[in-house]
């Protein structure tokens, strides 16, 4: 294995493209180093993307926020404006691992590791986040929900990697929330994760919603039926029950030691209802 730390997007793309699938991107390394040591991956080349300026830092402009794909979760959590605008996204990414993991782990890595249980992903999907992707053909934008195609698999072509995430500025009356279920209070992998983002008008009627579900299918899901259950309602009990039913209906989970199919399917609805309620309360407070 060789290691390179290019200083530009172009150099990184060239390195990744030239290695015909045997190069691996390194951001925070909290997944990759574990896989390297366990022998799950054996790349000829590791391309550390942390020295590329476009992957560092959090910027905001009238369009919204741009979060570099290699910014650590700890740094994102310390960004006051982003935390205020997208509390659900930030609470989701802060659930990833310990303090030590937070110091290294990145949004780019959490997404491209392509685990169905990645905590930040359902929240980013709910928030409508879009990835900036660089590659041999130039740059393109990909909605977060389109990037992962299956466990450990992404839609990135050879030579492509994620530069940054774009989040819009939330509209007035908007808020988001993320909840996950684990059998303990910290340090575990999601059995279910649910992100909800919604917008209320002056009368308290939900005009827009997005619901992201994690750990209940091969990829995190954008569940339009769940969002539609909220839109047009005042997020009352009937709407929340319809949301829960739609969330459960979208589940295609596995049975494993963390939860059975029946359990995950049922609890996905419960968590969706609770997350929507939190987002609703936050939106009313704005």
């Amino acid at each position, binding site marked *: 294995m060789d290691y390179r730390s290019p200083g530009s997007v172009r150099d990184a793309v060239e390195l990744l493209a030239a290695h015909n699938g045997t190069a691996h991107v390194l951001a925070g390394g909290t997944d990759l180093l574990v896989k390297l040591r*366990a022998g799950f991956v054996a790349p000829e080349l590791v391309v*550390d993307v942390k020295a590329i300026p476009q992957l560092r830092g959090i910027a905001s402009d009238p369009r919204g926020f741009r979060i570099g794909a290699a910014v650590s979760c700890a740094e994102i959590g310390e960004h006051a404006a982003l935390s205020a605008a997208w509390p659900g996204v930030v609470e989701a990414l802060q659930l990833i691992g310990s303090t030590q993991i937070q110091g290294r782990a990145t949004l780019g890595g959490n997404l491209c590791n392509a685990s169905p249980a990645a905590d930040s992903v359902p929240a980013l999907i709910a928030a409508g986040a879009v990835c900036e992707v660089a590659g041999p053909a130039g740059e393109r934008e990909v909605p977060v929900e389109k990037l992962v195609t299956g466990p450990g698999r992404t839609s990135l072509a050879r030579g492509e990697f994620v530069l940054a995430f774009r989040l819009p500025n939330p509209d007035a009356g908007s808020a988001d929330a993320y909840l996950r279920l684990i059998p303990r209070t910290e*340090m575990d992998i999601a059995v279910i994760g649910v992100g909800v983002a919604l917008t209320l008008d002056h009368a308290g009627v939900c005009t827009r919603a997005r619901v992201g579900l994690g750990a209940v299918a091969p990829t995190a899901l954008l569940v339009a039926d769940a969002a539609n259950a909220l839109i047009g309602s005042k997020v009352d009990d009937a709407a929340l029950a319809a949301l829960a039913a739609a969330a459960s209906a979208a589940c295609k989970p596995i049975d494993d030691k963390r939860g059975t199919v029946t359990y995950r399917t049922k609890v996905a609805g419960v968590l969706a209802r609770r997350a929507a309620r939190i987002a609703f309360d936050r939106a009313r407070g704005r």
Partner: protein
Amino acid sequence: MPKHHVTTTINGDPVEFLCAPEQTLLDVLRDVLQLTGSKEGCASGDCGACSVTLDGRLVCACLVLGVEAQGHSVETIEGMAKGDELHPLQRKFLEHAALQCGICTPGFLVAAKALLGRNPDPTETEVRYWLAGNLCRCTGYDKIVRAVLDAAAEMRRI
């Protein structure tokens, strides 16, 4: 594969070393630089025994490649005491008997120091969450948490 020449700062001192690309920072600290205070527990980022700071951020040295230290600043347990004078956290760990076998202790101390550097007056809950990535399998956590809170109180008085 040729080794990489890495220039870094460790505990305030400029340090150069050679390492293979797959060697972790923990491997380098322990096996190349003979800084064996950082321990290898799990080697997968779960136990925190190898906790160090990298540019002031608490990290697991087992989840950082040695080459990634290039141009950055690393602080390890070896930098904590000033000569024979223990850091208040080290003294309080002794006073509160917050260690038995000692394998987890360097990681707890480095992690606790990073906490108090950011938050000199943490609540017990904040201490417990901050240290959730440091595992102790013999002492139990109460004595460790009490030692950290006591050290914080003393450091606020100084």
